[in-house]
């Protein structure tokens, strides 16, 4: 905490200069983002290009998301992984157009880049147009279903409301639809439970009801922000199964945001690792798990408890704490915590921000180390310990 108070002095200045350096310097990210970028309408169902979400605060500019690019097809699942404050939640809120309504509400948020959803660009779109897409074409489920459901209204009436925003039907029809959805997500006696209030549901049932509410309009994009974090372990698996089943049934695109690599291993086709508001590694999930290319990903894997590991072996935690999003470390944002920061010559990690570079196929990583070097460290030093 003492650090952050020191940060305040001249934090704004520092953030400004850092920003200017990033833009003017030789490694300006704009346009450097690899893969499907390019002008005009994209082919992918969801495509995010060079997304930046910045919140000006009294302490300086908070760069929650700072140049993020990814794409997602219908029927596929993208897992976004990272520590708290890595920008993963803000990313999902930005896609939904809900970034303004976050807790930083009072500050003026600036968002740049492009978000293409089914051929429509959302960053520059009229907020009211985005609102009409919300809940219909894209829906979201949240971490804590107890606080995410309104305590004063019945579960049924909240689902009915979600349905009637986008469908001009009478209450009776909508209620039928709500019961049908509750049944579909596995709530017993849905015709009775529809009139219950959220506090009468168990944690797992609440999350099921949230999912029913999110899916009531058959959205093509479902964003799940830590959907199992607040639930019992036994219920977590059920909810993940449910999300997978429903995705198959509805054929929607799913973004699952989590800090739990186990969840991603379970569900995701693609994996995106975020650090300090940027993507440090992304690619097909099995490839990233088989041969991760970024020291931060190694750290995440090493922090994951595993039953098949010998109990005498310690977890390998990532040292230190997530970077301040106001004073992002120069060079590679991960360099103060990276055990291999001094491997590349010329002090590169501390001066130059690494760009995403292709490893193979759709696998990208932002690290200054040479690929051979990374692969050697992974196979010789990291993998045996996991």
């Amino acid at each position, binding site marked *: 905490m003492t650090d952050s108070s020191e940060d305040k002095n001249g934090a704004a200045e520092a953030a400004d200069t850092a920003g200017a350096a990033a833009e003017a310097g030789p490694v300006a990210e704009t346009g450097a983002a690899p893969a499907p970028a390019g002008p005009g309408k994209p082919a992918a169902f969801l495509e995010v290009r060079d997304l930046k979400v910045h919140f000006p605060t009294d302490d300086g500019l908070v760069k929650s998301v700072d140049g993020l690019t990814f794409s997602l097809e219908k029927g596929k699942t993208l897992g976004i992984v990272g520590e708290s404050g890595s920008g993963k939640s803000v990313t999902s809120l930005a896609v939904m157009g809900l970034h303004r*309504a976050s*807790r930083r509400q009072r500050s003026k948020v600036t968002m740049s880049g492009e978000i293409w959803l089914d051929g429509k660009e959302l960053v520059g779109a009229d907020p009211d147009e985005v609102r009409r897409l919300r809940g219909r074409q894209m829906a979201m489920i*949240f971490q804590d279903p107890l*606080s995410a459901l309104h305590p004063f209204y019945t579960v049924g009436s909240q689902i009915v409301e979600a349905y009637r*925003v986008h469908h001009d039907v009478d209450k009776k029809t909508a209620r039928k639809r709500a019961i049908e959805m509750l049944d579909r997500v596995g709530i017993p006696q849905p015709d009775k439970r529809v009139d219950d209030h959220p506090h009468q549901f168990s944690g797992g049932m609440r999350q099921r009801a949230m999912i029913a509410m999110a899916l009531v309009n058959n959205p093509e994009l479902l964003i799940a922000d830590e959907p199992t974090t607040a639930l019992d372990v036994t219920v977590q698996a059920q909810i993940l199964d449910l999300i997978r089943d429903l995705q198959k049934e509805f054929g929607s695109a799913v973004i699952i945001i989590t800090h739990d690599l186990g969840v991603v291993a379970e569900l995701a086709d693609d994996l995106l690792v975020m650090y300090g508001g940027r993507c440090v590694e992304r690619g097909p999930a099995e490839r990233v798990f088989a041969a991760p290319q970024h020291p931060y990903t190694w750290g995440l894997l090493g922090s994951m408890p595993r039953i098949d590991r010998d109990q005498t072996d310690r977890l390998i935690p990532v040292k230190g704490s997530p970077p301040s999003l106001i004073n992002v470390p120069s060079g590679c944002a991960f360099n103060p915590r990276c055990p291999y920061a001094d491997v590349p010559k010329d002090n590169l990690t501390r001066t130059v921000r690494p760009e995403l570079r292709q490893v193979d196929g759709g696998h990208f990583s932002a690290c200054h180390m040479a690929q051979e070097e990374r692969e050697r460290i992974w196979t010789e030093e990291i993998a045996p310990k996991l």
Partner: protein
Amino acid sequence: MFSYIIRRLISAVILLLIVSAVTFGIFFLLPKMAGQTTDQLAQQYIGKAPTAADIAAVKKNLGLDKPVYEQYWEFLKGIFVGVDYKFGPDAAKCHVPCFGYSFKTHIEVWPEIQSRLPVTLSLAAGAAVLWVVSGVATGVLSALRPGSLFDRMAMGVALAGVSLPMFFTGALALALFTYQWPIFERSDYVPLMEDPLLWARTLVLPWVTLAFLYSALYARLTRAGMLETLNEDYIRTARAKGLHERKVVLRHGLRAALTPIITVFGMDLGLLLGGALITEQVFSLKGVGAFAVEAINANDLPNILGVTLLAAFFIVICNLVVDVLYAAVDPRVRLS
């Protein structure tokens, strides 16, 4: 829900009994603490130069020599069956519901209060409508754009409203709108049924001054409550549904922010119904509050007791209504 209301009703009745017992006890003790003997007390009810026999008779008739619980029982009984007072050569009948008899004015307490209740009710109800509507609306608008020009101005006015005492704003309003620019002439209370227009006209100034004080409070309360609720997760959920922002704020935000306001409103209205002492004085309205002031000035114990019990009654009733409303608004309350 039904059993909840029954439970609340029973506890309200018990509370009223306790309050009346305590109040009665205090009024029984007060003269004693002031050093008055029961003889002196009895003497007050008789004319000049009473004989010892007169005093003894009055003491017996009024039950002044009985223990406090017996006197309280007689008082309670009187509410339901009435009382016949005999003192000296005179006698007085106190009809049902008998809340006492003023031996100074020789008028029963209840009819006197009854005749003044409409004034206080009109004053309180009109002001309440004004302050709830303006206070809550201001609070909501302020909370939507915290730090905006409107917010800062509204909160500045609210601060003034909370800080300025009634006798100042009331007197100022009178000076400006009755004497300087006689828009609202001073006139006596006119019953609503007799002439609704005139009724409203005589009450506009007291309504507005009273509402100014309270709406300031309610604006601040609403603003704080809304700012808190608008940060709740379920507001984000409501937005994620694609609801219009107006519905998000009113149906989801205000609904949740209203519950603490209902509580405060019940208390305020209950207090006010027991007599708006200062407001009624400033605007020379002959309501319950003015009656209380007269009774206190005249040291007329039965009247003071009657008004006090009425005030307690209103507070208990308003709280009962609040409890029921609360359960209607927040389903979680019904469980406990």
